[in-house]
């Protein structure tokens, strides 16, 4: 039976072959899923998949693209949104 702390959906089993010929199980943490666009649900580019502890220590520019709504909307959705804002206000 795995140790109590590994009995969670957060961990995945990796079967590792040892030099002695045995196959052991290594428990590795799962990475979170990729970030999705808030409107079209496409996978967002420029947002890394890291657990919160690592993500928090990344510099701000390494976590999202350097444009408005970066990390929230994909580039296409951002463009249509800005277009509609401009046309609506003009």
């Amino acid at each position, binding site marked *: 039976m795995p140790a109590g702390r590994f009995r969670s959906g957060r961990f995945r089993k990796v079967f590792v072959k040892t030099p002695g010929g045995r196959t052991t199980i290594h428990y590795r943490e799962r990475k979170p899923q990729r970030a999705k666009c808030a409107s079209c649900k496409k996978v967002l580019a420029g947002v890394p998949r890291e657990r919160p502890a690592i993500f928090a220590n990344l510099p701000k520019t390494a976590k999202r693209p*350097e*444009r*408005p709504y970066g990390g929230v909307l994909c580039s296409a959705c951002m*463009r249509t949104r*800005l*277009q509609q804002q*401009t*046309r609506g206000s*003009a």
Partner: protein
Amino acid sequence: MSIFEVGRLCVKIAGRDAGNRCVIIEKMDDHFVVVDGATRRRKVNINHLEPLQDLITIKANASHEEVGKQFEKLGLAVWNTKPKPAVTRPTRHKVIKNATPEPKPTKKAVKNVVSTEAPLTT
């Protein structure tokens, strides 16, 4: 007769400076224009611009200062890069291995000094 002509105010839709106002100062061909204003002076695809109804009276290839003046009249922000003052880098005190340590200032043994002055008596 395209809407993208010299003097047309536009909003940038794509890029780092998306959402910023800019004015067309030169038309290069059917697809590209040169733009200045609240964005840096650069060549831009017209697909990445959303034109506004305003037309500014400005000459083709106007300098950045002239564009800035026109923008300030309208109350719009202008892109400006200020040169940063030169700052001296903080120096690190290098630790040299196997160096003889500096001789510490030795304290001289202080004997009980008997003052020759007469003690203060009130």
